[in-house]
């Protein structure tokens, strides 16, 4: 059993799971605290459209060698800033509508670009489904960089972000730069989604980033323990998903998603008790 961990594909997948669990524990928790969880799904689909657009530009020679993740990041950030603007100016309904419309627009664009890139479409589909076992060293380095920055900034500004999430009016009254911290969380979420895209796919990135934090929020007694529980739940989902996928020969991200959802259901039962 242990020798399978000598396999570089599996080893990279395991390291990626640990890094993604750290993202889930930090940014995942704050997206749940701030009520931005639906936005994560929106960013993932915008990133998908961006990746497909980058492949499209490459395919037609308009911008040769454009990396799909760069396109994903640009589109993800456009969505983030659009929603961020409405979250400053508008009501909750306006934000929901802004996310919903951007979501639909992004998915339509993703499908449009995929339909135009023919034989390269498989590259874009890979980002929709994701595969932990196909991560390259470059993907892993990107994950390490983004995870380190994210964890560092969330720990540094933990109290400011928590106060804004808990009571935004008092945060304004205390003179905190609320917009700065709001955009910081949104930008870190976008980068996190983009680097997780290849590993878990646009559909399941929501499952691994948000659901462990949502489950942790159901049972934890303090905000900091939400982050620790979220990390543990994401780790259990990812590692167990990976091991079972090797035994059953199915997609690891799908199994990780199912395990994360089961953990969430158990947390709901514990919460009721």
């Amino acid at each position, binding site marked *: 059993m242990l020798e399978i961990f000598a396999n570089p594909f599996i080893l990279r997948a395991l390291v990626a799971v640990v890094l993604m669990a750290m993202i889930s524990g930090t940014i995942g928790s704050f997206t749940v*605290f701030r009520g931005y969880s639906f936005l994560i799904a929106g960013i993932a689909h915008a990133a998908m459209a961006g990746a497909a657009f980058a492949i499209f530009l490459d395919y037609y020679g308009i911008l040769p060698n454009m990396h799909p993740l760069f396109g994903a990041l640009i589109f993800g950030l456009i969505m983030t800033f659009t929603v961020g603007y409405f979250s400053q100016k508008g009501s909750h309904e306006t934000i929901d509508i802004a996310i919903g419309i951007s979501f639909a627009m992004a998915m339509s664009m993703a499908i449009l670009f995929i339909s135009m890139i023919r034989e390269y479409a498989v590259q874009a589909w890979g980002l929709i489904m994701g595969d932990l076992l196909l991560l390259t060293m470059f993907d892993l380095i990107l994950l390490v960089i983004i995870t380190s920055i994210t964890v560092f900034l969330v720990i540094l500004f933990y109290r400011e972000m*928590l106060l804004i999430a808990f009571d935004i009016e008092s945060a304004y009254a*205390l003179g905190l730069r609320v917009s700065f911290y709001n955009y910081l969380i949104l930008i870190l979420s976008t980068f996190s989604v983009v680097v997780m895209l290849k590993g878990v796919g646009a559909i399941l990135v929501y499952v691994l980033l948000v659901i462990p934090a949502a489950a942790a929020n159901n049972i*934890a007694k303090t905000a900091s323990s939400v982050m620790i529980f979220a990390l543990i739940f994401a780790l259990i989902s990812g590692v167990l998903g990976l091991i079972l996928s090797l035994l059953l020969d199915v997609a690891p991200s799908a199994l990780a998603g199912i395990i994360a959802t089961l953990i969430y259901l158990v947390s709901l039962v514990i919460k009721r008790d």
Partner: protein
Amino acid sequence: MSDSIAVEVRNLRVAYPDTIALDNVNFELPHPSIMVVMGPNGAGKTTLLKAIMGLIHIQNGSIKVFGIDVFEHPDKIRRMIGYVPQREKVSEHIPVRTRDVVLLAKLVRSGPLTIPTRRDIEEIKEILDAVSLPRDTWNKRFSELSGGQKQKALIARALVLKPKLLLLDEPFSGVDAPSQHEIMEILSDLRKKGISTILVTHDINPIIEYVDYMLLLNRKAIAYGRPNEVLTEENLTKAYGMKIKLIVHGEVCYAITGDYHA
């Protein structure tokens, strides 16, 4: 810095793109005292509190807190004011312990990565005791507290920053009558210690004995002064647009306004 006047509002006008929230509001609150702002929904009560903190743009007039213009020196003003928001605005789905609610405000003011000292922790305990929050609630999640306890915790959080002026937005929403009196006792003690309070409420009756000044508001200042001067049938009819009955008991007027809370 003037210490005899806590808040001075002159010709205040606040307008949003589609409506005028406040127009020609004037008052001067002597320090230390307790003032109530009362008026129907949409009267501009919360807007007035936000204007006093310098958080919204005003079209006309001036606001001074202890003689300092709130828009010229926002940082100084924020250090003098403790704000208690409407409880419904607090995100209770986040698990935060009661004592952490108070500690968080203190540490945020001190800057990132500040480690709480033993003195900070002692201070938090003293303040939680001062607002008579039972010790068995300190480690409970904020969401598990009763309405009155939550309000006390939020007042404790405002007090930890040692303000000279407290602003409370609808502190009695969902709070039973005994707790309302307890909270007013706390505010009354603070007045003795030199802290003024402005609080927004829909019903002055249960707390009238503690109140020094009252502003009756409906976008314009209908009346300002001592409660028994402000609470006249004429003023209440102007503010609420309907006839309000008054019962005079001793030197105190009781307005039979019913429940106007949304």
